[in-house]
């Protein structure tokens, strides 16, 4: 109550903020989130220093030295970086294709880009298993055109994980890139041309730097999301390609080692929060189209 009154009186240069009906309506949502999301997270992470009793920082010591944890951790980081790079290149290019397309094609391309959002993650991951398995369409095609004489093992490989995650996470890059491009003032391109820039120079020296904000925002989001990916690697990857999320789950469900699981979760959460802290302004600007303090 004090803070509400304080902000009503308005201090210094800050704009006085009135409690709006919409803001009041947010409280139940925040309360639900607090109970079903924030509280369990706090409980799990607090186990990292309390399980077993008197654990202190010993769990964190294991996280940073145990070869299994490090292997799963490296899997996670490597996959996340490759997926981020792949979605960045393909997503920006796809967004540019939408931007340059005529009105009818633009609708179609946007629809295709958004399609993954409207289908379940599980269904999409399973679809990739159907496509990539030994009797799937890719191997059928390769066999038919006699490129190979026996099926290529595509499923249960790092390649399958990267491919699946890239496809699923692409919209998170396409949308902010497309938004940034739609906001691009076409006169800037004409100005560059009139000043002596060939089309390629106008693109790389003006269009790309101005629309890069969308690419950076989308890439941060993809990086954050792919660090915590679970279902897709489980369905498409082999035993050696599993991310840290899978190890955390197995520590809890089979080893009952809540302390180690909690400390691994704490490390991942810290990395994700750090990335978001670095990129939040960009993400907010690209997705919400506004400056966030």
């Amino acid at each position: 109550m004090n803070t509400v009154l304080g902000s009503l009186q308005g201090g210094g240069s800050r704009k006085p903020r009135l409690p709006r009906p919409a803001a009041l309506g947010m409280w139940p949502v925040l309360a639900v989130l607090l109970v079903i999301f924030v509280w369990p997270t706090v409980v799990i992470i607090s186990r990292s220093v309390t399980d077993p009793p008197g654990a202190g920082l010993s769990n964190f010591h294991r996280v940073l030295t145990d070869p299994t944890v490090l292997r799963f951790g490296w899997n996670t980081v490597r996959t996340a970086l490759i997926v981020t790079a792949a979605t960045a290149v393909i997503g920006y290019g796809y967004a540019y294709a939408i931007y340059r397309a005529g009105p009818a094609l633009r609708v179609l391309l946007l629809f295709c880009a958004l399609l993954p959002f409207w289908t379940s993650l599980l269904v999409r991951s399973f679809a990739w298993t159907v496509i990539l398995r030994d009797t799937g369409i890719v191997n059928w095609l390769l066999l038919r055109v006699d490129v190979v004489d026996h099926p290529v093992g595509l499923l249960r490989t790092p390649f399958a994980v990267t491919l699946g995650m890239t496809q699923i996470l692409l919209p998170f890059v396409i949308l902010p890139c497309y938004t940034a491009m739609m906001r691009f003032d076409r006169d800037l391109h004409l100005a560059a041309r009139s000043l002596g820039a060939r089309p390629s120079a106008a693109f790389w020296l003006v269009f790309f730097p101005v629309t890069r904000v969308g690419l950076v925002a989308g890439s941060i989001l993809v990086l954050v999301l792919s660090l915590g990916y679970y279902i897709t690697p489980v369905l498409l990857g082999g035993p050696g390609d599993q991310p840290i999320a899978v190890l955390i789950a197995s520590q809890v469900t089979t080893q009952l080692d809540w302390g180690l699981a909690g400390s691994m979760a704490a490390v991942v959460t810290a990395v994700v929060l750090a990335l978001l802290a670095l990129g939040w302004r960009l993400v907010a600007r690209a997705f919400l189209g506004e400056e966030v303090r």
Partner: protein
Amino acid sequence: MTLGSTSPAGIHLQGVRKSYRGQPVLHGLDLTVAAGEFVSMLGPSGSGKTTTLKVIAGFEQADAGTVTLDGRDMDGIPPERRNIGVVFQNYSLFPHMSVAANVGFPLRMRKVGKQQRQEQIRRALSLVELGGYEDRMPRELSGGQQQRVAIARALVFEPQVLLMDEPLGALDRRLRAVMQLEIKELHERLGLTVVYVTHDQEEALAMSDRIVVFNAGRIEQVGTPREIFRNPATVFVADFMGDSLSLSGNVTANQVQLAGGAGEFALHGMVVPEGAARFLWRSDAVRVAEPAVLDQNGPTLRLPATVITSAYGGDALRLRVRLASGDVGIVTVRDSGQAPPAGSAISVLLDLSTAVALPDGADRYEVAS
């Protein structure tokens, strides 16, 4: 080299046509701009003036016709090889580059060495009185400063022609007046060819050597500001160039019969073809009087009128009046401290020697109200 040492180029347009999705926007345009001339393209929005500018810049290809610059056919030559400076309405500075990088951009494209580049950037910025602003970002500058940077950027590579597309449209009125004079001075100092697009007739009158009035994709009239203002060739030009009062009439021999039996008078030295014509007075050439006052000095036509509205404008008062014939026009009178109320009857006194006679075409410029 110093700025502006390149000899300016003339521009020649012949039979230029352009359509967008089957809608013609330019109907066979012929226009010659002499080297070193300041020409304004004036007209309402959608009249084709900006399209013409884009065709000259090479941003748009004409469907038919030729554009020559300095005698060279520009067909198929992309904008980056035309050596034309363009200034846009919204400045179009590159937001991610400093002022120096913006101004240096055309030099970078021309592979000018770093030393010489810095020297030319410095000189171009001092030309627009922005020396010392090299490291600022565009968003840190006011609108007027941004437009000066844009002008410096468009001049730094010594183009033969400078195109300006409503460059002052986004600035407030006072700053606009200052910038008008600065641009005019730059033109006189550098002697380059300037094609200036505007929809503001005062701006065109103030700055230009010649004005090209556009209407619906055609050129209505080309002439010096004085010619355009005092001797408009068509009713459209007359209406567009400012407030006026005009009457329809019919010319037979040496006699004019005003429409609706408003009166008749003899032509005084005016050469008007027989038939339908329109007689127009600039709003400052009309006097008004109380209905009862008799004032007969010189060949003056006296017509009863009703005040529709009045607007106070400092030393003058603008009255919108309706004549008995139904014609509506605007007259400007000196402010006498009190505006006549709406609906009051007055007389307008029209001096026949100041009338402009025009063939009565159907195409008129109507101010949306």
